[in-house]
């Protein structure tokens, strides 16, 4: 078993051929949300679900600025290239299965019920080293 992070970006490696959600009809948004709920339910049912979260688009960069000084903050930035929308963490038997789950997540319906084919980044977790290494 291995854990994978399925990362939803606001932008993948290439722009989506799909208008932003605020231009969809309410029914299209409902159908999309219901599908996403179904994906999570299916992962739970298969015993593969670990975590799913969405994060606010508004974020701030923070860093240390020396002893006794308040942290330096920067942002929020309206046009960040690498905005993370949210993630799903799964625990599955193989990388192939992780890809399959990510592709299914990416098949969520958009305008006209067509799959939006958004890019999902799949990243393996670093885990404990195995006991037997020789």
């Amino acid at each position, binding site marked *: 078993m291995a854990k994978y992070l399925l990362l939803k970006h606001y932008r993948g490696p290439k722009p989506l051929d799909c208008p932003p959600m605020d231009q969809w009809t309410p029914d299209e948004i409902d159908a999309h949300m219901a599908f996403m709920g179904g994906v999570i339910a299916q992962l739970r049912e*298969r*015993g593969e*679900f*670990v975590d799913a979260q969405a994060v606010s688009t508004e974020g701030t960069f923070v860093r240390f600025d020396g002893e006794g000084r308040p942290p330096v903050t920067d942002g929020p930035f309206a046009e960040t290239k690498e905005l993370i929308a949210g993630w799903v963490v799964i*625990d599955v038997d193989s990388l192939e299965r992780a890809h399959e789950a990510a592709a299914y997540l990416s098949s969520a319906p958009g305008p006209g019920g067509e799959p939006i084919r958004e890019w999902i980044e799949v990243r393996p977790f670093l885990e*404990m*080293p195995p006991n*037997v290494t020789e």
Partner: protein
Amino acid sequence: MDELVRELVPQVLGVLVRRGADFATAEDAVQEALVEAVRRWPGAPPDDPKAWLVTVAWRKVVDAGRSESARRAREERVREEPPPGPAEHEDDTLLLLFLCCHPALTPSSAVALTLRAVGGLTTRQIAAAYLVPEATMAQRVSRAKRTVAEAGVGAPGDLRRVLTVLYLVFNEGYTGDVDLAAEAIRLTRMLARESDEPEVAGLLALMLLHHARRAARWDEHGGLVPLADQDRSGWDTALIAEGVDILQAALARDRLGEYQAQAAIAALHCDAPSAEETDWPQILEWYDELLALTDSPVVALNRVVAVGQVDGPLVGLRELEPVPADVPRRTAVEAWLHERAGDLGAAHDLYVRAASAASSTAERDHLTRQAARLRGARG
């Protein structure tokens, strides 16, 4: 009572399943019987706790029949069975273990079911050990039970499969409160008591010989200490002696298998008073045997390390060439061979690459330190 229960539960489950109860019903019945035991045993402890549990649990199985036909089928079987008594088969736990490692299950499902039903761990403990939510582990266990119920009992057990599952529990173990490596050893000991297959002994020896070195494998900051740098006085000599005895008895049967060969390699490492005194020529011979048995690219890579020790880094680099590029740790081995060959620049760059491809933080940190060490040496 805890220890006793953990020993008895799989045996009782095994009896019920052998009598024809389906897996899920049997497990529920045993749980209910345990609840009764907790209530009654303190006042009136039974002479034979296992027989008591079998009797009570079997009654629950019969009671659990919902449809008439199911009930009829079960009553049929009850009539056929001898009355439950102390003279049940010794190998009931074994039957259960084979069932939990059913070939229809994925490895992760088999692991979960084995730890739950044979290991007697709670779903919460198993979930914590594998860092998943309890509900996810509960679902994995219940799906596994369904799969086993649908696939049916009766197929002859697949010992290879059982050994693979136990190896997985051992090898990917030890997070959380439950010591999965120790649990794998406990289950393998149990299997070894009932089986005279040399590979079972080989697997047990392999586990003991690695477990013996566990304390020395980690430094106080949680960093990984490579074999060559380990403080060998921290190795558990009693476990090593036991592992070597078990391995020698298995090898004497003259039916070599991959676990015995792996255990032989582990034993040779354990046998060396210092890294310099390691008997690499003999380890290389065992890798040749192991490679012939498994044809695994991971074994081929580990064999290259032995080649590097015996025949030098240049021969090692030549033998590394046919090892596929995607084998984990290949770049780390390449870095090490270049370092031994004196090409510190190439070794440094390869350690950096190996670190970024590492599959664990401990390994990544170790490789990063190797790279840092060589950068200093070059400057």
